[in-house]
């Protein structure tokens, strides 16, 4: 039977319909005024939006008493971290920013998706601004609030380091991109070691944003292997293993994180043998976060495992791979690649969830916002709005920026596109 070669020609991709560009007048009519009830909506929402914008701007620039944030800026960033050791944090920041810049630079050499968000096109500075403006806003706010030349100089130096790392990363050949990823992981470990080891400060004494970030990163990193094991266990052929994993996952998912945190804080000490010292309160909070996140990671990974086509497993078995090798070499790599965006999502929610451990009296970011209003200088002056808005802003920057990056990642990996 003759095969028509036409069938092998690539199918031309249908051209996207050209977006209509209306002249401004028509655009306003189309989008704001027609039909009549749209005009009413425009007026109502326009007034509301103007009013809210006015109130927010007035609060930020005029009525907000930002003195409390200015005085306590170091508290917000690092809590009660011993001030003489702060240089360690700065060094760690330099190392980590360098590595992340390197990683981003390496990634930027990769092909840009054709249907990426609109900030993907245009000159380099505009792309950088489009991707990084939430972070830029945060850094600017910190620089302005600190008002000290030394801090601003350090921030500029950090930014320069990041840019240098980015430039360096662009030279990395695409085949070696894995190195950049390894470098970021190493940098995180190195940063931690710089702060902790050789007369450093244990994380029990950290606070503020530093502790929040540490809890989020350590939480996701440590719950990931546990989550993968639970997910594999849930799909195991052995009913006992399956039942135990399902039980763990469903119990944890049915219970609020706060209940687990209370359990961790007040009960872990009782569960250990009497000759083992009870870990400090931050560690106990971290254990609760890990136990909680592992169940959610397990469900995400399970989704990834289910997305691996059966044919892959059958083919792997057919070429004679052992069950362990099938999982390790064939199933997991494909499954984990598919769930990267969902894992980023879980990281974002963990980043927000770390705020809950303020309830047990740990001064992470939200905890700092609560204790600075109890300082003698600022007591009972109704400054909660200022401190809470400031920490909300930090959380918002982190979560919003990461969710945008994750959407971008999703487009690049081509998952989520069907």
């Amino acid at each position, binding site marked *: 039977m003759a095969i028509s070669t036409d069938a092998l020609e690539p199918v031309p991709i249908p051209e996207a319909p050209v977006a209509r560009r209306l002249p401004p007048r028509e655009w306003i009519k189309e*989008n*704001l005024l027609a039909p009549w009830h*749209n005009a009413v*909506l*425009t007026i109502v*929402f*326009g007034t*509301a*939006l103007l009013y809210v914008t006015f109130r927010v701007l007035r609060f930020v620039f005029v009525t907000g008493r930002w003195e409390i944030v200015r005085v306590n800026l170091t508290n917000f960033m690092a809590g009660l971290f011993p001030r003489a050791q702060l240089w360690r944090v700065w060094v760690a920041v330099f190392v980590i920013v360098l590595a992340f810049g390197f990683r981003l630079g390496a990634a930027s050499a990769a092909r840009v998706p054709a249907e990426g968000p609109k900030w993907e096109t245009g000159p380099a500075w505009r792309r950088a601004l489009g991707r990084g403006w939430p972070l830029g806003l945060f850094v600017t706010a910190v620089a302005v609030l600190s008002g000290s030349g030394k801090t601003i100089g350090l921030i500029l130096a950090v930014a320069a380091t990041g840019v240098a790392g980015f430039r360096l990363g662009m030279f990395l050949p695409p085949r070696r991109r894995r190195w950049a990823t390894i470098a970021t992981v190493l940098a995180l470990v190195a940063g931690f070691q710089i702060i902790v080891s050789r007369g450093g400060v244990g994380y029990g004494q950290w606070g503020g944003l530093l502790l929040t970030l540490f809890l989020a990163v350590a939480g996701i990193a440590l719950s990931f292997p546990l989550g993968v094991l639970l997910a594999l266990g849930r799909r195991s052929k*052995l*009913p*006992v*293993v399956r039942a*135990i994993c399902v039980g763990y996952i469903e*119990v944890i*998912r*049915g*219970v*609020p*994180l*706060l*209940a*687990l945190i*209370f*359990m961790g804080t*007040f*009960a872990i*000490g*009782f*569960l*250990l*043998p*009497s000759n083992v010292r009870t870990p400090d309160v931050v560690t106990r909070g971290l254990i609760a976060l890990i136990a909680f996140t592992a169940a959610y990671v397990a469900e995400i990974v399970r989704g990834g495992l289910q997305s691996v086509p059966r044919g892959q497993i059958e083919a792997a078995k057919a070429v004679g791979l052992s069950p362990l090798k099938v999982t390790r070499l064939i199933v997991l790599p494909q499954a984990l690649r598919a769930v990267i965006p969902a894992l980023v999502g879980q990281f974002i929610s963990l980043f*927000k*969830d770390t*705020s*809950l451990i*303020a*309830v047990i009296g740990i001064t992470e970011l*939200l905890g700092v*916002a*609560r204790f600075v209003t109890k300082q003698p200088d600022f007591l009972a002056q*109704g400054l*909660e*709005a200022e401190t*809470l*808005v400031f*920490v*909300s802003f930090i*959380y*918002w920057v*982190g*979560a*919003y920026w990461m*969710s945008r990056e994750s959407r971008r990642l999703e487009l690049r990996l081509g998952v989520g596109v069907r």
Partner: protein
Amino acid sequence: MVAQVLFLVAVAGFIGFLLSNLRSNLSAQGIRTDFGFLDQSAGFRIPDSSFRAEQSVRDAILVGMRNTIAVALVGILFATIVGVLTGIARLSRNWLVRKAASVYVETIRNVPPLVVIFFFWLAVILTLPPIEDAVEWFGVTVFSNDGLVFPSVSTKPGASSFWPVVGLAFVTGIVTWIVRSRSSDRTGDPSHRAALSTGLFFVVLVAGFFILGRPLEAALPERGEFGTTGGLRLNPEFASLGIALVLYTATHIAEIVRGALLAVPRGQTEAATALGLPNRKRLRYVILPQALRIAVPPIANQYLNLTKNTSLAVAIGFPEVTGVVSIAVGQGSPAPQSFAVLMLVYLVISLTISAVVNVANRRLVLKGR
């Protein structure tokens, strides 16, 4: 098989190890190791409830559960309304409405719910003027740092005989609905079931109301020396918790609704338009049934999240079940058992919600296929 037995032994051994540690540690500190503390008297009071300090810890937990469920139900109701409206607004033809909705969603969604709760409690409700110069809107609501008071309904003496009438009205409405649907299915005539059943419902209700001599009356809040009387008062904690959880959860529901509406293939809309269905019918019979089927499971998940997030109220001192249990622990109830009971309570609530939603979901899926 051997592997399973080994695994089981390992897990059981580990749990047994933990439990034996627990037992020996508790008895070493002279804390009881059973659940008998549930029957001891609580020794604390719960604000805004009739709970007395002599009542048992068990009763305290039940009061806390009632508060949890109250917040969760109110929150689920309003979060659904706000969320669905916002989700639709994000797809509006009007540019300004679209932008306003996405600013709201993107702002609140990316802030931890606990921060939102603190904000509404410390920076909004508690900064309202004191009761002496409370904000009054048209004399029907009183907003002060003592809480938000809304108008409600109060009962007069003979009101107990009114509730059967309400039930009767309800039954009448439902029966009308079923009868009209059946006859419409048989004959093909329009059923008008919505109009008819609502109409009959109100006819019965109003008739009963006047026959029984107006047993209910509107209760408007009245401002007194030390607070308000009459009306429905939400204390500051309940109000800020409710507002924060509704606004936070609504952003997630809005995203789900938007995604679900976008997930209905465009061809469906076009086909419906080509068939000449008017806008409203297109939504009602073509778009919404398909979008709902996509949206219900994730929205159910948000209901569960909202219910679990009510536990954050412990940070602002609202006595829901987590708060009550942590007070009980502070008063000497043994921590491991108390928090185990707490986890059990949440498991029961979560499983109940899942079960209800599963039933709804099954109906929805069957209807569509």
